[in-house]
């Protein structure tokens, strides 16, 4: 076939055939890239094991949903759409890019399967793809460079702004689109001029515009543009490829793996080390993460894959209230630390403790483990396991704030963080209404259902109300239930998440024994932290229900009926507790319970369900003294006020405490009231 222009392969450049360059550039590019990737893999090889090779079906489904389907991206709509366009464009153009590389030395190369009709469809698509990617890049650049959304900003102490890197890459991508289009357009214009059948350029694509502009251009210019744009594309492409592993665009390569190897189980905490059983723990030299290599390879991959989008930080309650924790920078600092210690060129430097160099102690203690960051991350990075591991490292070194040492010592000695006597754990039962009793289970007394109260609800006077409400509700349902009484110790949920793994193991062993000797076939708790611990951290015990699930069941069985809300001015809103909502996906059950109460007017806060805003945290977090500008509870109460609610319903004792404190210190006392779901149910319950 007659060519309108000399193909790159046949061009003579400085006396050398273009094909030579067209082979050399990819060879060098791929060679460099392979070397860079090998260097980037070294830290992963030195890191701790992480078994992510199982449950292939689930993982593949996740890949389709989160990677291919970009499922999380539209949570920030504008940015989401921009990225989806660029991502889809990249996928489509990947074929073209490969073809282009090969065309450089094999001018009649056609991508297998894309000859004929399919090829035409593809060509049609790719030109639009390139155009849309280009437009998306312009929009992104304007948005980033001029409007600079808050979450991209870099606080002074974390160094320079990242805008340049972002704009640079957008520039590279745009250039690739331009060069590719110019390559096509110059050829088409030449074909046109030569009276040959021009390849079809879809209207309004970049290539189409270029072709129109170049219609009358001299052939020499067209030839030049064609060859130049080819090599410009080639060089830019391989430069870009090699540039990727040096910054946040590494995710272009790693995100597919990061998503595939994602954490499949919500609310669960990784063991101290994968492959070491609980019995073998005592033999470990060191617990937790103290140095970079103590992270697992997947966690290091997370650091590589972070796209620096700031969505995690934007949703982090600790960050919102001004604590020293910004999740995004937890990751970026670690990534930069890897780059520094394991440079692509140069010596690997010796390890250094992370706390005190890239991380501050308070930064790591500030986290309430609410999971908002993990919920948001578009590449499914994990945070909680890393924070728990860093805490394990600090605990191992004795670096625990005094404010936490007191409750930890109390938990060791007394099985509750308050240090109160074990024998007083069930004292709350003494104030039950006349005639209502709660049996304490044991060898002599076995029950069907075990009400696991946990420490806060047992010892805090305000929270005793929740326990008494549960008892009365169960009594109305004629449940055969009991409590462990002084045989119950703290579930250890926060003990584990604050890094005191051995204390957690001790509490767990004790509780499992006590639970199993109760004879119960079912456990119910009103404390989502206990719920999560029993469900995810414990093993070999009967199934656990949250009280809201229990209540809904009983409503459906017709055992619970409610008086209508008689005050028409009451506007209720439900606050999703982190450990019911995000960690256990129990969003609808409590809402259905509320909606079963006649006359109950309910509104949703803007941040609800998986975007719920943490109340401040539970368990040991109640004792920690953070440096912050305001309390999370205060922020949350204002959110309720914003939607016109005057009644906040919670389903967690810690949310109750934190939000009530929030009401007291934001001037809403008397205007907004907080109540636990169980209290509301009890109040509206029709008791014959």
């Amino acid at each position, binding site marked *: 076939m007659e060519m309108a222009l000399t193909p790159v392969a046949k061009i003579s450049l400085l006396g050398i055939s273009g094909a030579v360059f067209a082979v050399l550039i990819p060879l060098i590019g791929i060679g460099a890239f392979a070397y860079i990737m090998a260097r980037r893999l070294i830290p992963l090889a030195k890191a701790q094991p992480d078994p992510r090779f199982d449950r292939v079906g689930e993982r593949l489904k996740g890949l389709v949903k989160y990677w291919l389907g970009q499922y999380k991206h539209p949570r920030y709509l504008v940015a989401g759409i921009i990225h989806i366009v660029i991502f889809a464009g990249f996928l489509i153009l990947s074929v073209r890019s490969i073809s282009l590389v090969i065309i450089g030395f094999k001018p009649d190369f056609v991508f297998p399967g894309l000859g004929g009709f399919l090829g035409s469809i593809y060509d049609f698509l790719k030109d639009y793809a390139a155009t849309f990617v280009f437009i998306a890049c312009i929009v992104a650049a304007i948005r980033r460079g001029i409007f600079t959304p808050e979450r991209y900003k870099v606080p002074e102490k974390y160094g320079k702004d990242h805008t340049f890197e972002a704009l640079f890459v957008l520039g590279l991508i745009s250039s690739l689109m331009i060069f590719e289009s110019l390559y096509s357009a110059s050829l088409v214009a030449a074909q046109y001029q030569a009276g040959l059948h021009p390849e079809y350029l879809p209207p309004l694509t970049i290539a189409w515009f270029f072709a129109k502009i170049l219609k009358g251009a001299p052939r020499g210019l067209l030839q030049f543009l064609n060859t130049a744009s080819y090599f410009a594309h080639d060089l830019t492409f391989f430069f870009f490829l090699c540039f990727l592993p040096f910054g946040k665009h590494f995710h272009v390569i790693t995100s597919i793996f990061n998503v595939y190897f994602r954490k499949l189980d919500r609310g669960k905490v990784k063991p101290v080390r994968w492959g070491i059983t609980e019995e073998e723990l*005592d033999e470990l030299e060191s*617990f937790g993460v103290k140095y970079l290599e103590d992270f697992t390879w997947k966690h290091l991959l997370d650091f590589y894959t972070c796209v620096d989008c700031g969505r995690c930080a934007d949703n982090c309650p600790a960050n919102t209230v001004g604590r020293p924790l910004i999740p995004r920078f937890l990751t970026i600092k670690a990534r930069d630390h890897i780059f520094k210690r394991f440079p692509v060129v140069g010596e690997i430097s010796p390890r250094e403790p992370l706390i005190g160099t890239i991380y501050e102690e308070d930064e790591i203690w500030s986290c309430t483990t609410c999971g908002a960051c993990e919920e948001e991350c578009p590449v499914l990075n994990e945070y909680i396991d890393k924070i728990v591991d860093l805490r394990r490292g600090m*605990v*191992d*070194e*004795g*670096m*625990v704030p*005094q404010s*936490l*040492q007191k409750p*930890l*010592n*109390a938990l*060791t*000695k*007394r099985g509750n963080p*308050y*240090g*109160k*006597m*074990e*024998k007083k754990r069930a004292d709350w039962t003494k104030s039950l209404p006349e005639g209502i009793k709660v049996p304490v289970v044991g060898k002599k007394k076995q029950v069907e259902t075990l009400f696991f109260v946990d420490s806060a609800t047992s010892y805090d006077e305000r929270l005793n109300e929740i326990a008494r409400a549960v008892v009365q509700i169960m009594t109305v349902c004629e449940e055969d239930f009991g409590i462990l009484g002084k045989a119950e110790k703290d579930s250890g949920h926060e003990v584990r998440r604050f890094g*005191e*793994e*051995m*204390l957690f193991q*001790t509490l767990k062993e004790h509780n499992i024994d006590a639970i199993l000797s109760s004879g119960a076939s079912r456990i119910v708790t009103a404390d989502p932290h206990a719920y999560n611990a029993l469900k995810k951290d414990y093993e070999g015990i009967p199934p656990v229900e949250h009280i809201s699930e229990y209540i809904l069941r009983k409503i459906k069985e017709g055992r619970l009926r409610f008086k209508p809300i008689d005050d028409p001015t009451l506007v209720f809103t439900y606050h999703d507790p982190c450990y019911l909502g995000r960690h256990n996906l129990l969003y609808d059950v409590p809402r259905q319970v509320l909606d079963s109460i006649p006359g109950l007017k309910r509104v949703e806060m803007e941040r609800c369900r998986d975007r719920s805003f943490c109340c401040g945290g539970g368990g040991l977090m109640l004792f920690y003294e953070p440096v912050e500008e305001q309390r999370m509870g205060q922020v949350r109460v204002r959110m309720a006020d914003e939607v016109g609610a005057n009644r906040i319903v919670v389903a967690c004792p810690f949310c109750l405490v934190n939000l009530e404190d929030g009401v007291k210190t934001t001037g809403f006392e008397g205007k907004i009231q907080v109540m636990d779901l169980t209290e509301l149910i009890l109040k509206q319950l029709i008791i014959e």
Partner: protein
Amino acid sequence: MEILVCVKRVPDTAENEIEINSDGTDIERDDLVYSVNEWDNYAVEEAIQIRDKVGGSVTVVTVGDEESDEVLRREMAMGADKGIHVNDEALESTDGLGIAKALKAVVEKGSYDLILTGAQADDGCAQVGGMLAALLDLPYASLVNYIEVVDDKTLKIGREIEGGSQEISEISMPCVLSIQTGINEPRYVGIRGIRKVAGVDIPEMDLSELGLSEEEVAPRVKRLDYFVPEMGEGAEILEGDMEEIAEKLVELLKAKGGIK
């Protein structure tokens, strides 16, 4: 620097109501949990920090029954190098001076540059450190909240005095110091740490090994009983619901407190 820290196992009193047993001879100990005396813990932390800076070793010693072993282990889990357990029945009923004599015998078996005690313990006597210093004829300072090593013979110290002020002095070593809370932030000791030292050998000594006779530690000061004093009249407790109480209180504040 060779440092000896004297520690005591005491009941944990923070949240728990200490109650007197039925015949007034002791407090109710059945439900009590014990731990290392808070002041002593600060002292051990300080000793460890000094050792980490200037080298040497930290030895912890306690005078007590078998159970006292656990506080020695905890302080060793924290970082103390060695432990010594003085255990003799005769010492269970001795007074502060008797304890100080036993500790003096321990000191004389070794060679220490610095001896630390907590400023006080559960009985609030704040005496053993001062007595030990006098028995050994060493300089002493109590309520120490700051220690700086000047050289191998001198320390610069701060004492907590009234009003929260600090009295700065120089003291020569060897010396005895009693340590006030807040001098540092003691590191955390977790279950893991304690398990690691569970098998470590801690030598036990009785009176004869210390070279002391029972007469020497016979108490001259004896606790006769525990009692709850008759309450004086105390405050007039206001009754009623909160609104009523608040009203009454405002009236009283005006009348008796001069609030206008």
